[in-house]
């Protein structure tokens, strides 16, 4: 059958089971948009292409499917760049389809021409410039395969205008893909797996470091069986949250810069670290010279380039975590590590007492109280999407998760502005689930125009703006390490409630813990999108994220929460 390039795009998206595309049309991609309705694929019209990238990313992280973003050439494509870089460093599967100028004009600095395959080379898993409509179907199929297989990531397909217009005989491709150099390894090397099992069986003080790989490989149940059999406590990276139930007796919580001190201490004093689908980011190791000095280390990762990249390990295993755990489970002995677990409980010690939530309320509202109000009222069952900064860490610390794919956050790139558009993507992926975007006043203002998208798409996203009138995390560093000079971090903000209402979003304001609880309850009862501006403590002890490993310090060398005498 004769099809234009534009039609082939949708033919192939349908074959990849794509239900929704996030994007903005423009001169060089409108031809591709034109036949969309004939194919029944939903399009979410965003207000900025960066948001389209984040929405596709959020959709992917919640659904486990490939997110799709579409944009025109030039500025449309360059606006996608932050979304692509965010997805790349967090291994989120995404396909971006961009328009390009006519092939005869490529390289001539034509109107809205950007060499987007060149620009995105280092931030895509792979990218394509399609110059022949005959290759379009195979290219799109390959793009989806590459995006979701192995270590997932963003793939960009650049489509010149004439390729979109050209007609060809479309034969749905059925034969195998021709990728002679692309073979993600699934099973772990048997000898290495057996050496890992020996280390587990010999260890007295093991700790599992579970990362996002647990979620991506669908290894949550196997991980639970493994640690229950071996009685190994589990710590999570930020992106690993949800990979192991935090209510489980073996769950220690989040590790790293803003993890609890006893968790980091357990890592530092362990004799075996089992790093499962994580990559030893500098935010989780502290300074490397003193990182877990007595521990032997096993690292399982799908991407061999991650093995021995940051931390030299004793047993590096390339493979899909689920397959490797299947291999490992029968080789490990049931163990009793009561003494080790008691030791960790002992270290946990006064953590509870230091917790701000266990202090008497004093009328001031703090970030942890905001997250806690949402946590309690949603029973920990909501999908929480964060922006980047203090509120992100409070969300990670105070929104405990028992299920995978319920926390969406920009971990690796730390992209401010991610929260609202990613929450839109998350809500599209899970229309029947409550979605909360927890954002700060700084990051929210980078993409708040997406309130219009939420209204236009009738998406009941709940938005919690933790407003402290500062770029809070930077301000906290200035308070702690720069002598309290708040250089360029104070924000003169708009009235967020009025702003929300201008978009047609119902707004609330809360300035103390009781108002916060009421506002959360009312926002939850409201059917449409809702925004609550929480006026939280601006600075000082109650305005900071604790505990904290200062930059360049050892993991166990933490700034703890100050202990207050009971008032």
């Amino acid at each position, binding site marked *: 059958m004769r099809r234009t390039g534009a039609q082939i795009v949708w033919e192939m998206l349908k074959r990849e089971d794509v239900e929704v595309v996030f994007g903005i049309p423009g001169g060089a991609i409108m031809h591709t948009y034109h036949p969309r309705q004939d194919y029944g694929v939903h399009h979410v019209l965003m207000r900025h292409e960066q948001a389209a990238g984040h929405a596709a990313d959020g959709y992917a992280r919640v659904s486990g499917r490939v997110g799709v973003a579409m944009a025109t050439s030039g500025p449309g494509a360059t606006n996608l760049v932050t979304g692509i870089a965010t997805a790349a460093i967090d291994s989120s599967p995404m396909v971006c389809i961009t328009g390009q100028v006519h092939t005869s004009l490529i390289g001539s600095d034509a109107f809205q021409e950007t060499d987007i395959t060149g620009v995105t080379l280092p931030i895509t898993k792979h990218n394509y*410039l399609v110059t022949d409509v005959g290759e379009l179907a195979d290219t799109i199929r390959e793009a989806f395969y590459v995006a979701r297989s192995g270590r997932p990531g963003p793939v960009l397909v650049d489509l010149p205008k004439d390729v979109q217009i050209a007609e060809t005989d479309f034969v749905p491709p059925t034969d195998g893909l021709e990728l002679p150099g692309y073979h993600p390894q699934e099973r772990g090397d048997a000898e290495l797996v057996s050496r890992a099992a020996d280390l587990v069986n010999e260890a007295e003080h093991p700790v599992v470091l579970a990362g996002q790989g647990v979620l991506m490989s669908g290894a949550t149940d196997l991980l639970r069986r493994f640690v229950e059999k071996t009685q190994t406590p589990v710590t999570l990276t930020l992106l690993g949250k949800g990979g192991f139930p935090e209510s489980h007796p073996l769950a220690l919580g989040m590790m790293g810069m803003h993890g609890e001190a006893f968790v980091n201490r357990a890592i530092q004093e362990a004799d075996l670290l089992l790093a499962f689908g994580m990559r030893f980011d500098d935010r989780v190791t502290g300074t490397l010279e003193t990182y877990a000095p007595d521990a032997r280390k096993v690292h399982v990762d799908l991407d*061999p380039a991650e093995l021995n990249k940051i931390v030299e390990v004793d047993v590096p295993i390339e493979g899909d975590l689920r397959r490797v755990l299947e291999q490992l489970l029968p080789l490990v002995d049931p163990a009793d590590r009561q003494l080790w677990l008691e030791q960790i409980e002992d270290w946990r010690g006064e953590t509870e007492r230091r917790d701000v939530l266990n202090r008497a309320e004093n009328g001031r509202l703090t970030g942890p109280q905001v997250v806690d109000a949402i946590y309690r009222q949603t029973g920990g069952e909501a999908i929480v999407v964060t922006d980047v900064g203090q509120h992100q860490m409070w969300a990670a610390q105070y929104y405990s998760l028992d299920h995978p794919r319920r926390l969406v956050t920009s971990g690796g790139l730390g992209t401010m502005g991610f929260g609202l558009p990613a929450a839109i993507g998350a809500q599209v992926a899970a229309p029947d689930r409550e979605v909360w975007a927890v954002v700060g006043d700084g990051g929210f203002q980078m993409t708040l125009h997406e309130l219009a998208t939420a209204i236009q798409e009738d998406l009941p996203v709940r938005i919690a703006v933790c407003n402290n009138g500062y770029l809070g995390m930077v301000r906290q560093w200035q308070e702690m390490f720069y002598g309290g000079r708040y250089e360029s971090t104070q924000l003169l903000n708009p009235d967020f409630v009025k702003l929300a209402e201008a978009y047609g979003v119902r707004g609330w304001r809360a300035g103390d813990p009781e108002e916060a609880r009421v506002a959360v309850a009312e926002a939850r009862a409201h059917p449409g999108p809702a925004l609550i501006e929480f006026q939280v403590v601006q600075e000082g002890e109650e305005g900071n994220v604790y505990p904290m490993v200062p930059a360049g310090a050892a993991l166990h060398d933490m700034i703890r929460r100050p202990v207050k005498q009971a008032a």
Partner: protein
Amino acid sequence: MDRTLVAWVEDKPGVLNRVASLFRQRAFNIESLTVGHTQEPGVSRMTIVVDGERTDTEKVVQNLYKLVNVIKVEDVTEEPNVMRDLALIKVGASNGTRSEVMQIVETFRARVVDVGLETLTVEVTGTAEKINGLVEVLQPFGVAEMVRTGRVAMTRG
């Protein structure tokens, strides 16, 4: 010490750019990179010489494999192999020195490929050491211009 890698890559647009971009992105130090066709249509072959002191070759190999178009990578440094560089050297040669230069060229089993009024152009193939040696002895005659291809390598047998 430098290490020699051979990479087989799909002959697709931009593949050289992908490899070069990777080296820049990961701050790998390379000495030379050559690329050309192989006996197999659609497959190109790169010889990459890595500064083994400053760059972890294993990491280079692992990162090359992350590129979808890279088919196979081998570190051939420790293998029995043939490694060759080709150089064209334009060297000063007046009536008085011409025969001396020709003698040196012959000793190094190089060839004169062009003769000018004041210069000779010499083509030499061999290991990097051999070419360095020739350049050194030609230096006193005045090397006006030189170009080297960078190393190509193949394992023996």
